């Protein structure tokens, strides 16, 4: 179920911009904050642009940026976590101390500091999110890998003289894929929250690029008229995060 949901959002992110009715920057109507109509399915925004188009582009950038950041964070975090569990000793201590240090900075704060220093651009945001969420993934996979490492088949593989790379990828990883995937889902939700918060504060994605947070921010005035221009992106974020969290939660309870 969570996998299907994730695939749905990824698919929407990839094909969304191609099925959009117009281009995101084009002013299509002289009415601002227009309500839902057949010409513009979700009305128009504060400049008279088509909301559905902008929503599809915004969803696409939110989902894709966060997905890339999560994949980077989790692949690095999981790999380092498994290495720490396998090697133990000094490698483990040094890595764990470093990760504890990084994790002691609140995520929104790290994001703000990164943007203040390097300016706000797509690579900065993705890399910052990857760095912020790597320690959490490291911790989870280290805990998971520690219980796998104690098993007999790891000992057998070590006796066979297998290399570290083989041990990590072929022996440890296949035995913890389920929990690791659930962890990836959670990190993705955190990343969506962080990116949307940053964009809502005006320090995330910069125009002409849009994401769900900046769409809500720029149309905030439409709240007074109950315009779909502000309700649609806000609702999309809610459906994306709550839906995925519910799916992950349900999976956890059944187990």
């Amino acid at each position: 179920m969570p996998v299907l949901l994730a695939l749905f959002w990824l698919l929407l992110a990839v094909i969304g911009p191609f099925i959009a009715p117009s281009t995101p920057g084009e002013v299509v109507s002289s009415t601002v904050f227009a309500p839902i109509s057949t010409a513009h399915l979700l009305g128009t925004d504060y400049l008279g642009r088509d909301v559905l188009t902008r929503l599809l582009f915004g969803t696409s950038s939110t989902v894709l940026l966060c997905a890339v950041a999560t994949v980077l964070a989790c692949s690095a975090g999981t790999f380092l976590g498994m290495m720490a569990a396998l090697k133990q000793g000094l490698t483990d201590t040094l890595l764990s101390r470093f990760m504890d240090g990084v994790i002691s900075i609140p995520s929104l704060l790290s994001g703000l500091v990164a943007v203040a220093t390097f300016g706000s651009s797509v690579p900065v945001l993705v890399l910052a999110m990857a760095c912020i969420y790597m320690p959490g993934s490291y911790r989870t996979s280290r805990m998971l890998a520690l219980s796998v490492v104690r098993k007999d088949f790891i000992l057998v593989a070590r006796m066979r003289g297998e290399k570290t790379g083989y041990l990590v990828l072929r022996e440890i990883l296949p035995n913890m894929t389920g929990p690791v995937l659930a962890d990836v889902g959670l990190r993705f939700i955190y990343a969506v929250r962080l990116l949307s918060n940053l964009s809502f504060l005006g320090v995330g994605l910069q125009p002409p690029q849009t994401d769900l947070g900046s769409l809500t921010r720029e149309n905030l005035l439409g709240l007074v008229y109950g315009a779909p221009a502000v309700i649609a992106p806000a609702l999309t974020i809610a459906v994306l995060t709550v839906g995925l969290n519910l799916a992950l939660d349900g999976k956890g309870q059944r187990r």
Partner: protein
Amino acid sequence: MTAQLGKAIARRLGASLVSLVFVVVSVFFITSALPGDVAEALLGQAATPDAIASLRHSLRLDQPVLVRFAGWAGGFLSGDFGTSLVSHQPVLNMVHDRLLHSLLLAGITTLFAVPAALLLGTLSAIFRNTLFDRTISLLTLCVVSVPEFLIATLAVLVFAVQLHLLPALASISDIHSIGSFLAAFSMPVATLGCVIVGQMARMTRAVMVNVLSSSWVEMAMLKGVSPAFIILRHVLPNVIAPLFNVIALSLSYLLGGVVIVESVFHYPGIASLMVDSVASRDIPLVQTCAIIFCAAYLLLTTLADIVALFSSQERARA
């Protein structure tokens, strides 16, 4: 208090101190990673090379990074937090009032949110797996999954736009009466409260369910002890320590919420100062605000861990 517990607490405090140093050092080195960029960003593209050079000299950007770090850390320890690049005022003056405002907001929110969250969490634990519990679980799950600004937006929509109950903007400069005090604070406090009540109620429920389903509570129930007596005599002593841990951990989530809430409601606190300084890339101000926030966050998480140490000690003895 045993020597073992004392040692464990000392070790935890030591670890927090190391984390604090790590944070301070990394904040400095990350923010000075691009030395020339600050001067160029401040003066804009039309700046002459001479102007950039002289600004870099006055900001001491032409010195090696370790020399600057020594000067900066020395100033920091003696209470000199530098000068803002934008307003040219001492950072300490700018931060001081704002910090008090933020602490006031956080304090009032805590006062309301902690009892509310404990009550909600406890009730869901007592009536677990009923419709009430499921509704609360779903609501708190929604609150903890969506970004904080969404809750703020929703609160504005409901209370200020639809019901016309409260003003959407907080202006704490013109508080003269109880009425204006309530008007200014209710929206930010309600929003921030929602954010941490969600977290805290979920964790409280977990703690309470853990104790309520324990064998000694079942034993007391089988003995025919009255529910009120069970709660007061058997449950309460066993949940005080874990609940303190829950409270301290949830209050550290306050920091994330406060950034959003202050910006949405234009509340003149330290978090909105930080967001403004990030937008204008005013590095000394960003550094100071970031360190204040990290110190507060570390303080709360350390407190939570120390309470947890105490409680595990109690349980070991029991």
